[in-house]
């Protein structure tokens, strides 16, 4: 009797939620799937035609490609920045102020953010005052650099000479450093060697030149990266090396400023090499705060004694971060990352407001909107919606399973 009363109560509790879910989620999903198999005015059954269209036509494929770009860049950036800021904010006295500042954009609507950033990226023809912050800043710095290019040239040259001299001193002083310097000398030789090897291999095998070129480039990149890392690492352990690095940075800065002296305003949102990055940047600006807050909470849960112990064991700060902290909060990172993937898959507002999907920046949600509400092709719109849903569901299921496992461990 008591048992039955209890189950009745629980049904009453979940009842409204279930009804709302059925009416506003399950029913629309079923209708959408059904509509995706119909023609534009939903009057005739066309089978999988709309899906074939979506995967064989240029414009929806472009939207799919852009969504992939968004997921990779957007998720990496939001979670990455969130994690870095969380760790850094953990160590400063004005932690809550810093976190609040980064979290603030979350309070702005996406449409509002889009409008704000449209002003940030604004472009005017060269010679006319720039209203866009980014172009205004860069052209002001560029103008200053152009006016002071003689001074910049001198500072740059002196810093460069200092960097070179101290580099040579450090080269003689440090033996481990010699090794990495050797790597730098070996590096061009290695390229030549690989190139020679490649041509030798090509002579006897059927590998195409483009495959080989790719191989060579990959090997070069790996070697270059290894050389640069070991170089900087070694330099940091020697006073002369440190001076050399500072000198090199100043020289590079002067060079960069001199480069900006000939700066022409960039059409950030129209230029195809910058526009997708510019759009993702807006999204990152909005969502980094969210990642930061969640990851920061997870960090607080890590026992300080463990970190202390690893430090006592001789781990440096980077090792503590990479080998202790990150593994300990990996579950949270995963949850945040999957949440971000779902969010980013559904991106619409920012793209619609800022470019309307023009200049090859279209995403699925925007293409869907145009198909259904501008072209009145409800079949194709529904098909795109189903594709979007199909892309989100596995990530969501993964998230739920992860959540359950965690609950089970408690």
């Amino acid at each position, binding site marked *: 009797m008591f048992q039955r009363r209890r189950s009745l109560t629980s049904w009453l509790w979940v009842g409204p939620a279930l009804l709302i879910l059925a009416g506003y989620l399950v029913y629309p999903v079923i209708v959408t799937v059904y509509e995706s198999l119909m023609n534009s005015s939903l009057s005739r059954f066309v089978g999988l035609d709309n899906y074939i269209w979506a995967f064989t036509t240029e414009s929806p494929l472009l939207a799919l490609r852009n969504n992939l770009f968004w997921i990779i860049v957007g998720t990496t950036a939001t979670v990455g920045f969130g994690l870095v800021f969380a760790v850094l904010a953990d160590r400063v006295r004005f932690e809550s102020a810093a976190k609040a500042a980064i979290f603030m954009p979350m309070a702005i609507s996406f449409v509002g953010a889009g409008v704000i950033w449209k002003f940030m990226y604004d472009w005017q023809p060269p010679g006319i005052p720039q209203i866009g912050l980014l172009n205004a800043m860069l052209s002001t710095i560029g103008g200053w650099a152009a006016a002071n290019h003689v001074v910049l040239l001198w500072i740059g040259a002196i810093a460069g000479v200092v960097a070179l001299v101290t580099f040579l001193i450090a080269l003689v002083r440090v033996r481990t450093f010699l090794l990495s310097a050797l790597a730098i000398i070996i590096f061009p030789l290695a390229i030549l060697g690989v190139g020679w090897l490649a041509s030798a291999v090509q002579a006897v095998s059927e590998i195409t030149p483009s495959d080989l070129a790719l191989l060579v480039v990959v090997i070069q990149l790996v070697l270059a990266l290894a050389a640069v890392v070991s170089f900087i690492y070694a330099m940091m352990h020697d006073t002369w090396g440190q001076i050399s690095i500072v000198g090199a940075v100043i020289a590079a800065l002067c060079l960069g400023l001199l480069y900006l002296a000939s700066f022409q305003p960039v*059409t950030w949102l129209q230029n195809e090499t910058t526009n997708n990055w510019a759009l993702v940047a807006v999204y990152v600006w909005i969502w980094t705060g969210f990642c930061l807050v969640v990851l920061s909470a997870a960090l607080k849960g890590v026992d300080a004694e463990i970190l202390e112990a690893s430090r006592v064991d001789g781990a440096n700060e980077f090792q503590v971060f990479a080998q202790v902290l990150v593994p300990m909060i990996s579950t949270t990172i995963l949850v945040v990352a999957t949440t971000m993937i779902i969010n980013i898959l559904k991106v619409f507002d920012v793209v619609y407001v800022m470019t309307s*999907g023009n200049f090859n920046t279209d995403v699925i949600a925007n293409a869907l909107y145009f198909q259904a509400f*501008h*072209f009145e092709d409800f079949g194709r719109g529904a098909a795109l919606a189903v594709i979007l849903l199909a892309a989100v569901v596995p990530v969501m299921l993964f998230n739920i399973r992860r959540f359950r496992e965690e609950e089970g461990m408690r």
Partner: protein
Amino acid sequence: MFIQKRTGLIIAGLLLVALVAVACAPAAAPTLAPTAAATTAATTAATTAPTTAATTAATTAATTAATTAPTTSATSASAGAPTTAATTANLSGQHVSVLGVWGSSELTAFQKVYGVWEKQTGGVVDWQGTRDLTAVLTTRVQGGNPPDIAILPNPALMQQLASQGHLIALDSFMNMNQVKTDYAPAWINLGSYQNKLYAIFYRAANKETVWYNPQAFTAGGYTVPKTWTEWMALANKMVADGKTPFSIAAENGAASGWPLTDWMSEIVLNNCGPTVYDQWVTHTIPWTDACIKQSFQLFGTILGTKGYVLGGGQGVDATNFVNGTYPMYTNPPTAYMDYLGSFAQGFITAQYPKLQAVTGYNFFPFPTINSQYAGSVTIGADVLVMMHDTPAVRSFMTYLAGAPAQETWAKLGGFIAVNRSVPLSAYPDPISKAVAQDLYTAKVSRFGAGDVMPAAMQQAWWKQMLLFAQNPSQVDATLNSLENSAKSIYK
């Protein structure tokens, strides 16, 4: 424990009640709307026009009407008797909801136009403005809540709505003899579907106009070109003088790209003639057709020649089309010519109110490309359609279609009437008069190509033109891509 359980039950019950209320609300809304409409303006604005923009528009409309009504009604009275008796009927308190894209100066002028009708009949016009008309209208039609009157930007959308049975035939109540006197047969054909009139073409745009600054032309020793060859020679001369000949601007939010398709329409009509133009618009010839390709190459030359266009191809895409009408009139001018429809006059005079027509700013007709098709013009026009049949809507529609209402706006400027009973003397300045005359006397006139293509094709073309502006040498790739889109759209 027991108390907690009870509270739970009560809350659950409350939630159920709330749910029932939510479920019933959408069903109740349509039945409520007409009653609300009859009571107060404020509630109607809230129920039929949910956006805040529309609500403010409605309030400003009321104030503008109140302040300007006396003067405008006086002018319309002197202009002649209203077309039909319907406009004088007592429609006190009856509402007509109108959906359109107009804003700023266009809306102010339209408010003056309908203020006269409100004064005469006592009816009330509820204006809902949106830049995203197709989406808003589609949603409202699908939701069973269309506006009484919609002002569509192109006839393609009108044909589609008519074929779906969403429009009310106008010949059922309008005096067709009057309509035939007022409108040229071509316009009546364009507005008809299966031999029934569904649309009135209202505000025309003449898209043959290249805007320039006569004083700057005189100062530079430049003369107005008559042919394409002369035009390009002039552009080269300007470049040689260190000046930028063209201002081209295509940015307009979700509709970005239309100024570029306007360019192409005008070039194709002047280069290939009306027959090829019609075949191209209906996709009976492919986009890769030789003459279409040649036309794209002509425009590609303008977009791609170094120094021709202010800001280059990316500048074209990044500059708003209204702002693109300004560079000719700065001191010194940053560009010398801007091709944009006759409505550009409104932008120029709003930004530079002191500029004198003809001496301060002027236009020359689009230069001849093929002498065989000299004097061909592309046009555009807003389309009035009716979606609810009530006495007030009939009255308002008849009023808008008549000459007096169109004359009211023509006198305010920025309006070229399609109604041919509007006298040329109504136009306030020589430029709008010339634009109207050119439109009425054009040997060949065609609707801008994008406006008569299916919406999806139009949008695909806009997008492609934006890319073309940045890569004007990619003619073949552009046309192949458009042809592929066309194959999947014209079914």
